[in-house]
């Protein structure tokens, strides 16, 4: 091993200077900094998504990949239509009994681009380029496409907001199962990219491919947003409740832009 000495004075000054500048930039100029860098990050995210599609195509085969994508898009369209129909039906009933129409229309969508993301087994979060100046608040619903719930706002700055995806282990969403009895439960994120609807009594009927929607019992998240579809049902006779494994319709890795629902009232 070669012995060497270090010019500690100069080195420490430079390192402390860099460290202070970086932390100051993060803490005090985060908003301005992100406004400057977000266009580059949007380009990087879009490029990465394209490469991701090519990568997937390489392993699936181009034709099969296109067919799978088309099927996925069709499934999502059907899911949206079914959810929309159901919501319309329910809304109609509600309107007849009382004037609750405003509940449907009091949210407006703000479009946002994803500029950073972290998708690991322990966390599924992303940062969007809209913040409190655009009216975004903590707890607001984040959607993809036409009403697919992908997460909730967990923290917000003037120009950015952090979104916890619905599949994140810390995520909990008040949900309704579209079965005959409209089972209400809590969709919890898990360690895999799936969710679990827990605490469902054994007498509640659950079928594979049943739609799961937001129940509207949570502030900031309106009813009728698609949370996912039932992928499997865990029913053990000795357990007090059954569980439904829910598959989200959107992969957050592929998303480049989302919509944030804000209360317009």
């Amino acid at each position: 091993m070669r012995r060497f000495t270090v010019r500690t004075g100069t080195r420490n000054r430079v390192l402390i200077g860099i460290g202070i500048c970086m932390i100051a930039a993060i803490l005090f100029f985060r908003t301005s900094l992100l406004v400057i860098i977000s266009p580059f990050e949007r380009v990087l995210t879009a490029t990465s998504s394209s490469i991701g599609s090519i990568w997937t195509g390489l392993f699936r085969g181009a034709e099969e990949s296109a067919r799978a994508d088309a099927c996925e898009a069709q499934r999502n369209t059907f899911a949206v239509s079914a959810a929309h129909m159901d919501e319309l039906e329910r809304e109609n009933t509600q309107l007849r009994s009382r004037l609750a129409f405003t509940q449907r229309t009091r949210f407006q969508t703000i479009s946002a681009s994803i500029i950073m993301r972290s998708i690991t087994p322990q966390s599924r979060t992303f940062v969007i380029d809209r913040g409190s100046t655009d009216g975004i608040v903590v707890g607001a619903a984040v959607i993809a496409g036409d009403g697919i719930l992908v997460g909730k706002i967990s923290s917000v700055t003037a120009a950015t907001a952090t979104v916890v995806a619905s599949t994140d282990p810390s995520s909990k969403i008040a949900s309704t199962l579209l079965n005959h009895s409209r089972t209400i439960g809590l969709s919890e994120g898990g360690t895999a990219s799936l969710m679990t609807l827990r605490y469902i009594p054994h007498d509640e009927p659950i079928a594979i491919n049943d739609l799961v929607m937001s129940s509207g019992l949570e502030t900031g998240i309106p009813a009728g947003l698609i949370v996912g579809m039932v992928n499997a049902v865990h029913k053990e006779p000795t357990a007090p409740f059954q569980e439904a494994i829910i598959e989200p319709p959107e992969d957050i890795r592929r998303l480049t832009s989302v919509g944030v629902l804000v209360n317009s009232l």
Partner: protein
Amino acid sequence: MITRIILSIIFGGLAFMIQVSFIAALPFPLSAGLLVVYAGAYFTQHLGVQDGIVWIVAAGIVSDAFGLAPPGYGTVAALCTGAWLFFASTRIFSHRSLYGIVSCVITTTLVFQLAAALVLVVFLLLGREIDWQGQANLALWGMLFSLPMAIILFKVCSPFRPILERVGFRSERL
């Protein structure tokens, strides 16, 4: 001095931006790459300046500040990695050959993964559910990518070393 600080911030910021915007959106296993760790370890070992340690630590703090990782995960793992990288680059890997750089990058990645696993053990003790299989997959691919990335960085960045030395990134080793 100012040029060097600005350049260092640009390099570190760029590596972090590519990590969280580009690499994170790629499909698994490509998303397992840890560019900031690889680049930080390479820079520290090859140029003999410790800016790479600052990048790694700053990236950990920023990840926590933005909520991109569970609270404390990024900072603690990055601090442990930074401490190891300082020790390894000044006391263990004295050679700036390809072998020295590759060894430094691989061991730094290993320390990052071990530190991350230790933080997860703490989370487990605090009652959080941990996906150990997923974490092991991520760690394994992160380790596998460290070898080609160290070689690529060595081959690509070596020609720029004289330029970087001219703007102030001179080795602090004598």
